């Protein structure tokens, strides 16, 4: 951006040695100076609001701060009115274990025994399209710093990814860059990558979704909040130096749609240095251990603008900062650029005068650069000076919290009814539905080799899942499980899910289905679901159709959280994911966190003990709309599978009890790809075959073999039960009135998956089909 001319030639000459500084005094004297608010992403009404708040025109530096902090990315101005439901639809029971809720860097949940866990999922979509490696890498970096800011040691990451069509030439660019970026950054931090998702769909071609989740653990007494309290306490910036990267990342990149008419936005993407971040993690943990900081905030979107205004407005309300004290990578940066820079690996903290020496000793030990910028005041004003001259004088709340809020118009799209009426069953694409054994076998092989259902080893083998020595389950198991306490075995489980096709067909229920699947995945691992974080990826909120999708999704998700009794503790909204007027499928990615009292009891997704009985829990209807099978046949229409949250809850309780009491040795949830995908995955997990008979359960549910295998009916799972536990297990299901059908046995010697009366496929053949797809496209 360009700084503002002061108008006076003598003054200009004086400060020409560095910048033309637009001071508050100057701004008051020169009300009519043209300001580049539109280039910075502000709308006319928003600029007018800034002038009204200040009672004068903003200085160049103030304009920079307001423009980034009032951007869609930072202010949630289009979604705020809807997001409130996550805070209002909460019972006292749901609040019981919530130590820190929405609004802080990340929510914190009580795990018991003095332990707490914090987790959050965020988007880094736009930068990852522009520059996949750095975009994805800094996505990890940013979410990890959010976790550190809470006082926690980060212990794992996950990455839900959605890219364009697998055979589109640009998909390889994004795939290679994003996966290498996630690996390159995450692996260097020593954080195991324990799961995620990989979906290919042409709707994400120009708007890939790169979401990142991090989870951290801490003792209760270590919880830190982002606030600057205590007059006279010092404000310090530490970590990497501030450079020219990522300027306007939040306002320009993340808050607009891409189109071909604008210049390249590469300079708005940040560049990451994982080594600096790893050192920063250890350094912060040492600060926490010594209780050396009063408040702490990471620098992410909107950089110093965000950190100073949020720290000040969450604390006693005042802060004075000298901007020339910021250590720079590029000495030519203007004050506005310094305020907006999104350079990575930086933190801001508030330190009491007594702790200054101890703080500096920790910095010296880890060779981390730091500079003291100023101090906390009780004036209620955020004052930023440049060589002593005041360039920012604002009420920090007006920057951080009092941004514009829009009630965007929304309406059910005109095409929604026709879309929902176009069901798969009976459609042209449903012609020749597989019925013979031979055709069903071919369909199973086609399904498990398809882009969305194939093995994701090509991706996950580039991530370190072992580091830390606490990973008890990781991809491809249903949930990632990490031990928290080595003495007791206390641990957490995490899963993320979304289905853009379901949500496109029905945003309200689609969002609920995402929650239901993540909940089911966590319960499948044996963990008790406790909390939710969501990353709401949508198109432009200025399109009433998209706004309706967003509003319906939030309403559906918040209702379902209430019904399942697990609160949303944080998350992120990513809007403007569209190319021209074509938005992505609405993609609310839902992460559920669960707790295991003893990680030793966790349930893996594959069977390995010969002779164990395999049960199918739940019932199957003809629900192929939006399914992977319909997708493979090029059909998208109708209504997604029915959501029955009471059934999800009942199934979850069965899976959790079975795990705790040793009644199951394997469990796998049924979701995309239905029973067919689940049977194959559970067999391949430990390379152990099974004999399956489907006739009885097909007759019970009134469906044919193909429908039983490919329908995506919800609230279902398969489990492997030791013979000695069968009676206890079936009694439990009966007592809870939950359908459980014995569909087969584990057959270790066979080396094949035998669907009796249908076909038998050697595991080697299944594995080859399952694992060949990603290497074929990506090398």
């Amino acid at each position: 951006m360009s700084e503002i001319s002061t108008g006076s030639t003598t003054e200009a000459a004086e400060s020409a040695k560095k910048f033309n500084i637009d001071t508050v005094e100057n701004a008051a004297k020169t009300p009519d100076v043209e300001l580049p608010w539109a280039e910075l992403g502000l709308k006319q009404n928003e600029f007018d609001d800034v002038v009204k708040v200040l009672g004068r025109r903003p200085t160049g530096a103030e304009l920079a701060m307001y423009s980034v902090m009032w951007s869609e990315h930072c202010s949630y101005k289009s979604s705020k009115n809807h997001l409130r439901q996550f805070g209002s639809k909460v019972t006292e029971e749901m609040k019981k274990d919530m130590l820190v809720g929405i609004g802080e860097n990340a929510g914190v949940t009580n795990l018991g025994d003095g332990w707490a866990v914090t987790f959050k999922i965020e988007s880094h979509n736009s930068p990852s399209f522009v520059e996949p490696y750095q975009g994805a890498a800094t996505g990890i970096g940013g979410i990890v710093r959010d976790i550190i800011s809470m006082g926690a040691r980060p212990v794992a990451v996950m990455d839900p990814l959605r890219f364009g069509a697998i055979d589109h030439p640009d998909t390889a660019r994004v795939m290679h860059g994003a996966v290498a970026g996630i690996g390159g950054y995450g692996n260097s931090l020593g954080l195991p990558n324990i799961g995620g998702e990989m979906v290919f769909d042409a709707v994400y071609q120009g708007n890939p979704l790169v979401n990142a989740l991090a989870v951290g653990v801490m003792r209760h007494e270590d919880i830190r909040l982002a606030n600057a309290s205590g007059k006279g306490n010092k404000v310090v910036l530490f970590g990497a130096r501030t450079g020219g990267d990522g300027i306007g990342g939040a306002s320009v990149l993340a808050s607009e749609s891409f189109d071909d008419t604008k210049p390249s936005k590469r300079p708005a993407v940040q560049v990451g240095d994982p080594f600096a971040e790893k050192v920063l993690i250890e350094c912060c943990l040492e600060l926490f251990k010594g209780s050396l900081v009063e408040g702490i905030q990471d620098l992410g979107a909107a950089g110093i603008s965000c950190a100073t205004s949020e720290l000040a407005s969450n604390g006693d309300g005042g802060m004075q900062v000298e901007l020339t004290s910021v250590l720079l990578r590029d000495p030519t940066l203007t004050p506005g650029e310094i305020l907006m820079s999104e350079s990575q690996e930086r933190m801001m903290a508030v330190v009491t005068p007594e702790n200054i020496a101890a703080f500096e000793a920790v910095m010296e030990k880890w060779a981390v650069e730091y500079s003291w910028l100023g101090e906390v005041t009780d004036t209620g004003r955020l004052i930023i000076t440049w060589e002593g001259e005041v360039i920012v004088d604002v009420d920090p709340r007006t920057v951080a919290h009092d941004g514009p809020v829009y009630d965007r118009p929304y309406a059910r799209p005109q095409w929604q009814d026709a879309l929902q009426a176009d069901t798969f069953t009976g459609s042209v694409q449903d012609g020749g539905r597989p019925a013979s054994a031979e055709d069903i076998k071919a369909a199973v092989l086609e399904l498990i080799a398809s882009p969305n259902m194939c093995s994701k080893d090509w991706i996950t083998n580039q991530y370190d899942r072992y580091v830390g020595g606490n990973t008890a389950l990781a991809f491809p198991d249903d949930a990632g499980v990490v031990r928290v306490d080595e003495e007791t075995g206390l641990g957490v489980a995490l899963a993320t899910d979304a289905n853009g096709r379901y949500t496109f067909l029905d945003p309200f229920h689609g969002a609920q289905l995402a929650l239901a699947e993540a909940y089911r995945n966590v319960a499948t691992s044996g963990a008790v679901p406790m909390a939710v974080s969501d990353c709401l990826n949508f198109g432009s909120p200025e399109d009433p159709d998209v706004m309706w999708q967003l509003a319906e999704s939030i309403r559906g998700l918040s209702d379902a959280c209430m019904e399942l009794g697990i609160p949303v503790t944080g998350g992120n909204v990513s809007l403007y994911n569209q190319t021209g007027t074509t938005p992505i499928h609405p993609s609310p990615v839902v992460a559920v966190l669960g707790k295991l009292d003893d990680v030793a009891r966790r349930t893996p997704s594959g069977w390995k003990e010969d002779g164990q009985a395999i049960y199918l829990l739940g019932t199957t209807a003809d629900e192929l709309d939006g399914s992977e099978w319909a997708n493979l046949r090029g059909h998208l229409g109708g209504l997604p599978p029915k959501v029955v949250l009471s059934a999800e809850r009942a199934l979850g309780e069965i899976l959790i009890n079975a795990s705790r009491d040793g009644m199951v040795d394997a469990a796998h949830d049924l979701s995309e790809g239905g029973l067919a995908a689940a049977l194959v995955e559970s067999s391949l997990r430990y390379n152990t075959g099974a004999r399956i008979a489907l006739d009885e359960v097909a007759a019970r549910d009134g469906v044919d073999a193909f429908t039983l295998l490919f329908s995506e009916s919800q609230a279902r799972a398969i489990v492997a039960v030791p013979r000695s536990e069968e009676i206890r297990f079936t009694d439990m299901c009966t007592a809870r009135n939950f359908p459980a059908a014995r569909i087969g046995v584990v057959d270790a010697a066979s080396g094949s998956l035998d669907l009796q009366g249908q076909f038998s496929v050697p595991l080697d053949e299944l594995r080859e089909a399952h694992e060949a797809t990603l290497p074929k496209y990506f090398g």
Partner: protein
Amino acid sequence: MTETPLIGEVSSGVASAALSGARIGVVTFPGTLDDRDAARAVRLAGATAVELWHGDNELADVDAVVIPGGFSYGDYLRAGAISRFAPLMSRIVDAANSDAKLPVLGICNGFQILTEAHLLPGSMIKNDHLKFLCRDQVLRVENNTTAWTNAYAAGQEITVPLKNQDGQYIADEKTLDALEAEGRVAFRYVGMNPNGSRRDIAGITNAAGNVVGLMPHPEHAIEVGYGPDHTGTDGLGFFTSVLNTLLGGK
């Protein structure tokens, strides 16, 4: 209910309680990642883990040293190239070369540091497929007479995690021939060569057998349920080996 041991149960290989007095140092550099894992492995083997800081000037009376994996100094310049200049590395090099023959194990980045410090020959370059690779890797123990491998049988196959980007072991032909002739190839990859390493070499030892380096991670295969799927604890033998060595004065 099942014959598979529960996660977290250590089924074998724990040395006698008398050895808990053995002090094994674990070095932390800026960017080290697996230091806590290595310390856990030392504890589970029955010894006392001692934290060592790269900037320290003395070895704190440790009986052996583990240089763990990670990305010390971000692998900038070249993996291990900066870390070798740490003050503590000079003490480690001196102690390893002294008559006392301090046992030193370098894992992954630790192996890279040992080659940079010239305690072991050769070097590691980027994997031949140019990607980071994390997998459960089968290794054959080629030399079971070193300070870190004597708990294994000669030719025993073990499964431990492998995870690196720069894991391709290289050396000139003369060095490789000498390593083979002197029995200094400690481990070889079995089944597949995951990174293009010369002669499938996964780890080597110095002539005296007190310094061993390898790319795979034995410290991630010490507890049932937290390591490779089927075996799980094959890596514990490294840590019981060094206790045998200390006990027997080998």
